[in-house]
């Protein structure tokens, strides 16, 4: 009993120390975001002499924060909603139609998960340029293409466990396939839809390479793009950089605090598939 209590306390202290260690880069960042550049060069570890918000206001302006945030948000939200709708529709008929074409198509979609982005990157830029899709709606279209395989796989696994009798009962009552999908199936998909939404949000929100190839124009930039060009512009201005980084990280931290439970579940669901 006594021995186990000592082990208990030891583990608790170890856990807290490790957690603080993991968070220490954030602390250092926050601490320096209130300092002047001179103070940062003098000593990174010292506390700021006074709370100074000028770095934040300057960084907000230089990052075009409002505009970049809205760009990121619109692209992410539209892509995720469309991905959920389109891939759940496809997954539903692929589960219900047990034909050869259906199985082949499913395998076709999932095997594409192996293709590294670098492999399609250059021809994609050329192709999308020709089609005039190098803009914000175009990038949503591309995210649907790239997200299709994983989303389809997750919905497919979930719909397999929904009894087909439900569809049949609705069909007997005279519902057409669109009504069955929309009124019977879609409401049942809520748990897996949350998983698909979170996994795609995490990826699309943070994505850098695709937008940097497709929409790297003033006014269209997403947060990661803008952060990158901001760093290029102010490479040694650590006072602005630290404040800017904090502001770009903040939405993600808030997102985690709000959806903690769902995120944990999504990660484990997504990994097992």
């Amino acid at each position, binding site marked *: 009993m006594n021995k186990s209590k000592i082990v208990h306390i030891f583990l608790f202290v170890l*856990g807290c120390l490790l957690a603080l260690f993991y968070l220490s880069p954030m602390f250092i960042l926050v601490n320096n975001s209130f300092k002047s550049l001179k103070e940062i060069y003098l000593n990174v570890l010292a506390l700021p002499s006074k709370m100074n918000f000028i770095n934040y206001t300057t960084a907000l302006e230089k990052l075009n924060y409002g505009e970049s945030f809205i760009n990121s948000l619109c692209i992410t939200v539209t892509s995720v909603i469309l991905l959920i709708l389109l891939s759940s529709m496809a997954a539903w008929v692929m589960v219900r139609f047990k034909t050869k074409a259906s199985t082949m198509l499913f395998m076709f979609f999932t095997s594409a998960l192996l293709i590294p*982005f670098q492999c399609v990157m250059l021809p994609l830029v050329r192709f999308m340029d020709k089609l005039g899709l190098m803009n914000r709606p175009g990038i949503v279209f591309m995210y649907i293409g790239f997200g299709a395989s994983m989303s389809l796989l997750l919905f497919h696994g979930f719909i397999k466990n929904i009894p087909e009798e439900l569809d049949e009962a609705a069909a007997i009552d005279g519902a057409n396939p669109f009504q069955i999908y929309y009124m019977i199936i879609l409401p049942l998909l809520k748990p897996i839809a949350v998983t698909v939404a979170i996994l795609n949000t995490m990826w699309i929100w943070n994505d850098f390479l695709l937008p940097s190839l497709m929409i790297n124009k003033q006014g269209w930039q997403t947060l990661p793009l803008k952060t990158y060009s901001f760093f290029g512009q102010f490479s040694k201005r650590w006072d602005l950089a630290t404040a800017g980084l904090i502001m770009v990280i903040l939405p993600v931290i808030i997102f985690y605090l709000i959806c903690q439970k769902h995120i944990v579940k999504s990660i484990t669901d997504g*990994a097992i598939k």
Partner: protein
Amino acid sequence: MKKSKLTFWLFVIPLLIPFLMVVIWPAINGIYYSLTDWNGIGKDATFIGLDNYVKVLTNDAGFFSAFRFTTIFAVVCIAIINVMGFCLALLVTQKLKGVTFMRGAFFVPNLIGGVLLGFIWQFIFVQGFEAIGKFTGIEGLSGWLSDTKTASIGLVIVVVWQLSGYMMLIYVAQLQNIPQSLIEAAQIDGASALRRLISITLPLMRPAFTIGIFLTLSHTFKLYDQNLTLTDGDPYGSTEMVALNIYNTAFDFDRFGEAQAKAVIFLIVVIIISSVQLYLGKRKEIEM
């Protein structure tokens, strides 16, 4: 429900069209372009056979060293990330106060995008380490990113910081699946905590380890963002990984055909590694 072919295609086509246009068509095109002298996004390409492959495989030291660095990097990262992830999982599944906070602290780095991770750690390595070095008198801490060896270690630290919490979540899920009765039975038989870990927990964790290794491999092998913003391949291209090498070949040197040949080689390697791993993973599960 009347199962007509029309219904099937009506439901599939809205997803199939973007998928074909964004992934499949460029992939097929990419194989063709790797056989041409393509040298600019909008420019025409003429067929030159396997010349690009010959050039890349026989006369491109940068590509070889990028591949070697990526492989070593991936192996080191896989080992550290999975061991760390498993230890963290063991820690946060104990009945301790504050485990929710700990879990959050370990996991949050995973939500931050790669570009930001690189910049955050650039600050820590360049400014933070310098200050700690001055404070403690350890000289090795300054100039962390301008030395070949420490710069690679820096890249490992960033990726471990990012992914160990992710692996922790996966291992926590599996740990919670282990029936408590098994552990209790062993406890009654007098097995020590270490014995229980080795003889019960570890063998039952095997499927999760397969998943964990697969995920860390695919993350580290294809790493781009962190590589770009932390070191950008510096010093002297020593930390340049395959993805960055492909990008630079195309956009810095306008050698699109060669870059595409490298990408195809990369794809082949990824497919080989994945199938070997899938095969090994399946076989182990059957043995259980």
